[in-house]
């Protein structure tokens, strides 16, 4: 790991996380929103692995496995719900999913 | 005998539980039962009246049961001279109110009677509670039946009036709750102290609270009571509630509920925080005087009789507050008797307005005129009650207002201008009441509909006569009532003197 220090990883992770958050806030297609959420989770994974290597303790990497598994489960449920909604409304655009407001 | 107050408080509630199980179609039974229960309560309070020992300035018939051990809260009731008078007023007015609504309340009689009885329990609880937590529970719980009485059986704008009444009272009382809890914790910081809401213990603890904090505590309590009284800038809920409430509701509202505010001032604000009381006395008295004059002036321009009576309450209660904050024996005695007077005469005025409203379904002064010809009995009663309300010597109103003015004049805490300015209130009262009376009762019969009005029925006479009896009794021989509260008043004044912090430190050195 010569040349690449912990803070590089952390900076990358922060950038990826921010991209993910911005994506969630701005994109209108539900599927892309989910991909952005995945991006957030993976940026966390990156920082966990980096911390783990830096601290020399494996807990962080174990966390990553769990996060990946849970993310998969969450994505599965999310996609199922999108399908259910698509059957009702024929759209996955978030702006059109607005029966309920304030 | 030790439990007699508990029986008194919960007898109306027992009645309402019984009524709950009756079929709502049995209107007559419901009415009679409700009336009987309120009469029984009155009878019980009569026993208490005779058993009460006026030479004892402390709390009598006290009963204390530990309720929440962890917070040291107890069910603690007892009465002294002040509470006695108000308990009697409550038990006296409730049956009259029920009787007065015999005809006017036709829908949902069952709910109505239950609410009135629950309300009576709440009011009696407020006047008897000696634990602040218990007091607060009754104080708040009583709002619910009153909300429904105004909201269900009131006039056109009843829903607005009911919620306004509820919200106003709630704002004040929650701040009071904060102050109560704070006081409880303050007690626990004392040597060997623990959390307590016991009023008697706090009487000796609270006056030692540092003045800056005492100021906040005093304001929190007083704000809550001032809304209830209502003191001048907080009075805006009152005309709405009074005008929209059904007759019986107005009678109870004016007769008893407003007294809860002045009672609270006398029971909590003044003796708990004597230093803050002395500090704020001129300001509160100023608000009271503004209330007296403002209420009178606004009454004068009303076109609706009920609204006129409602605003006159603001004026009359101003006198009561002035008397309390004069902090003299005459002032406080006058206030106590004036609370009773206002309950009787304003209650009677509302009854009279209700009777005329039942006949004509309007309360506009301009609709009437010359009623003396068709309703002579009505005119006579109306005359006496109006005169009592404006303070004619020989009737009850005079005694109260006179004592208050003397008290304010002699007060060492208030300047004499307070008494002088507030005496204009008496003159204005004569103006607006007599002017209204003249337009309604005298003169030519201008409106032909009024030709066929029937005079008072036997039931209506039965409602008004007892009130009249006391109006005259207090006016001619006030001693009967004054002696009951005499020692208690002396005691309060001595407490204020004794516990002001300058005296506290002083007596420490001499001891």
């Amino acid at each position: 790991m010569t040349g690449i220090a912990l803070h590089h990883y952390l900076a990358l992770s922060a950038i990826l996380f921010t991209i993910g958050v911005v994506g969630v806030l701005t994109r209108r297609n539900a599927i892309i929103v989910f991909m952005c959420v995945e991006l957030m989770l993976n940026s966390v994974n990156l920082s966990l692995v980096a911390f783990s290597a830096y601290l020399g303790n494996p807990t962080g990497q174990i966390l990553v496995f769990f996060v990946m598994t849970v993310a998969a489960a969450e994505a599965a449920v999310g996609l199922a719900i999108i399908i259910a909604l698509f059957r009702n409304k024929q759209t996955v655009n978030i702006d059109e999913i607005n029966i309920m407001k304030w | 005998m030790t439990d007699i107050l508990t029986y008194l408080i919960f007898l109306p509630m027992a009645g309402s539980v019984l009524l709950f199980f009756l079929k709502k179609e049995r209107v007559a039974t419901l009415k009679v039962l409700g009336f009987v229960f309120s009469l029984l309560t009155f009878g019980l309070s009569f026993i208490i009246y005779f058993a009460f020992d006026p030479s004892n300035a402390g709390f009598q018939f006290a009963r204390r049961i530990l309720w929440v051990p962890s917070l040291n809260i107890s069910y603690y009731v007892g009465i002294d001279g002040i509470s006695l008078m108000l308990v009697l007023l409550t038990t006296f007015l409730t049956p009259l109110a029920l009787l007065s609504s015999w005809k006017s309340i036709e829908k949902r009689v069952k709910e109505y009677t239950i609410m009135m009885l629950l309300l009576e329990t709440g009011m009696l609880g407020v006047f008897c509670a000696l634990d602040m937590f218990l007091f607060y529970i009754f104080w708040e719980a009583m709002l619910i039946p009153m909300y429904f009485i105004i909201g269900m059986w009131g006039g056109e704008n009843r829903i607005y009036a009911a919620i306004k009444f509820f919200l106003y009272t709630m704002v004040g009382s929650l701040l009071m709750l904060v102050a109560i809890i704070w006081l409880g914790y303050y007690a626990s910081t004392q040597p060997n102290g623990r959390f307590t809401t016991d009023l008697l213990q706090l009487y000796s603890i609270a006056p030692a609270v540092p003045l800056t904090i005492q100021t906040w505590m005093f304001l929190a309590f007083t704000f809550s009571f001032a809304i209830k009284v209502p003191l001048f800038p907080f009075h805006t809920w009152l005309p709405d509630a009074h005008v929209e409430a059904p007759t019986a509701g107005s009678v109870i509202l004016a007769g008893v509920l407003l007294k809860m505010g002045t009672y609270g001032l006398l029971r909590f604000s003044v003796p708990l925080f004597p230093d803050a009381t002395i500090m704020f006395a001129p300001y509160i008295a100023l608000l009271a005087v503004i209330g007296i004059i403002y209420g009178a002036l606004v009454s004068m321009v009303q076109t609706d009789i009920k609204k006129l009576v409602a605003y006159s309450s603001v004026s009359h209660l101003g006198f009561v507050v002035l008397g309390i904050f004069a902090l003299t024996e005459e002032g406080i005695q006058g206030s106590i008797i004036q609370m009773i007077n206002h309950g009787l005469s304003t209650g009677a005025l509302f009854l009279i307005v209700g009777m005329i409203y039942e006949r004509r379904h309007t309360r506009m002064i301009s609709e009437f005129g010359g009623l003396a010809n068709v309703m002579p009995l009505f005119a006579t009663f109306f005359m006496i009650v109006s005169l009592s309300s404006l303070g004619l010597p020989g009737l009850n109103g005079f005694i109260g207002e006179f004592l208050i003015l003397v008290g304010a004049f002699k007060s060492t805490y208030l300047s004499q201008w307070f008494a002088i300015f507030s005496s204009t209130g008496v003159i204005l009262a004569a103006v607006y009441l007599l002017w209204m009376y003249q337009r309604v009762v005298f003169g030519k019969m201008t409106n032909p509909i009024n030709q066929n009005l029937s005079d008072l029925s036997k039931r209506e006479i039965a409602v008004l006569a007892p009130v009249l009896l006391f109006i005259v009794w207090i006016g001619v021989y006030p001693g009967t009532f004054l002696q009951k509260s005499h020692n208690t008043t002396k005691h309060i004044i001595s407490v204020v003197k004794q516990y002001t912090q300058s005296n506290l430190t002083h007596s420490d050195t001499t001891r």
Partner: protein
Amino acid sequence: MLEQIVHSVKLLQPETALAVTFCVLLVLDLVVRRKSNLAAWLALLGLVVTAFFVLQQASSGQNSIFFNMLAVDSFSVFFKFVILASSFLIILFSLQSDELNSGTRRLGEYYSLIIALTLGMFLMTGASNLLMMYLSIELTSISSYILAGYTKEAEDSSEASLKYVIYGAVSSGMMLYGISMLYGLTGAVDIYGINRALTEGDINLMALMIASILMVAGFGYKISAVPFHFWTPDVYEGAPITITAFLSVASKAAGFAMMMRFFKVSFLDPTVGNLAMGAWASFQGFEWNQLLAAISVLTMTLGNLVAIWQNNLKRLLAYSSIAHAGYMLMGVVVLSNEGLAAVLIYFVVYLFMNLGAFYTVMIVANKTGSEDIEAYKGLGYRTPLIGVAMTIFLLSLTGIPPTAGFVGKLYLFAALINGKWFWLVVIGALNSVVSLYYYVRILRNMFLKTPERSAEPIQFSFAHVTILLVLLIPTILLGVYFGPLVEYAQASLVMFGIQ
């Protein structure tokens, strides 16, 4: 090591019982093809067995199991009871819900998911490891996503579900980021280790603050605190009433339990000894409770103010539940056991009054098909029993004596006043006044207005009355006789790792 595992498994009996029930229900749904209520009764049986095991735990003292993954202590047991009681009641509600039982929908999965959700909440109450926190939050979240959209042919239900997933995923992502920062800062993932690292080491407070703000995103989402509340109104409105009621009580309780444990154990400064009457201190210069105080004020104020404009009762109760989360957060802010005890007391009270309000809404919706406030016009006369019950629940939610809600608020206010948080108490008190306004709006429609169209009384059965009374009696009784509840709550504040 083996010994530790054996010991741990013994203390995992309630969770095991729930997991077994879950599996049985899942298999049963595959085997039994016709529509029946068998699953519901089996689920209830499973809950009873679980309750039995939890009762045993109540006397087993304070333990930490699976190498500091989960704490089994009085604190978690208290919340387990709250959660069990609400799941039990929710299953009973579901049996009577027309919304769920209409059509040909089979409910085996539904009940199994309720059990899974309960399991997740159980784990949340005891979670003492960041990983366990994340996993238990995800277990509850994923189960509730599905449940919120269970009536999937209804447009608003699936919409609610989608919004829930998106907000949920984002918050858990943020929380995870906080977890990774905390791990990086302290090198530990269990809260005891974090506390030790914070006590010993020199930690960058700025980074710690950011990490805990990110953690709060996760907790805040579970307890629907502002500004993580956006999902709440939509999900509460769109989801079946039973699920809304469940989320508003149990899920919130679990979120609070986890949050209180995390903040108290991780950020407790052990060097500052017994301050006074069970008060404790957080690390020098790290005042996370100020952050929570701000969130609390925002939460209750926004919840109450927006609730005023709602006409759909489910949505109104959603905002009201946001406001109640704000009140309860006040108890966490004080940094004293008294405050935490107040939250515990409030939850018991809230369980009965809030479920009661939702149950009434459900009965009315069963009959009228509407959750709109207009449907309540004249209800007090059409069906006095329901009208009176709803009145008591609403007055209790407002906090008017002598109902249980008042006792809840009393203890919260008392804790705050003792902790000298006067401004917060005053804001709380004013908020109660605001809440009075919209609760009374429902009362007004029930009693002071007459219905526009002719409306018949709502029929209800013996079972309805029984459940109503089960909710109603504690709501009144706890307002008058609350000594034992208070003592139990105060005795339940013992968390593992703290004396």
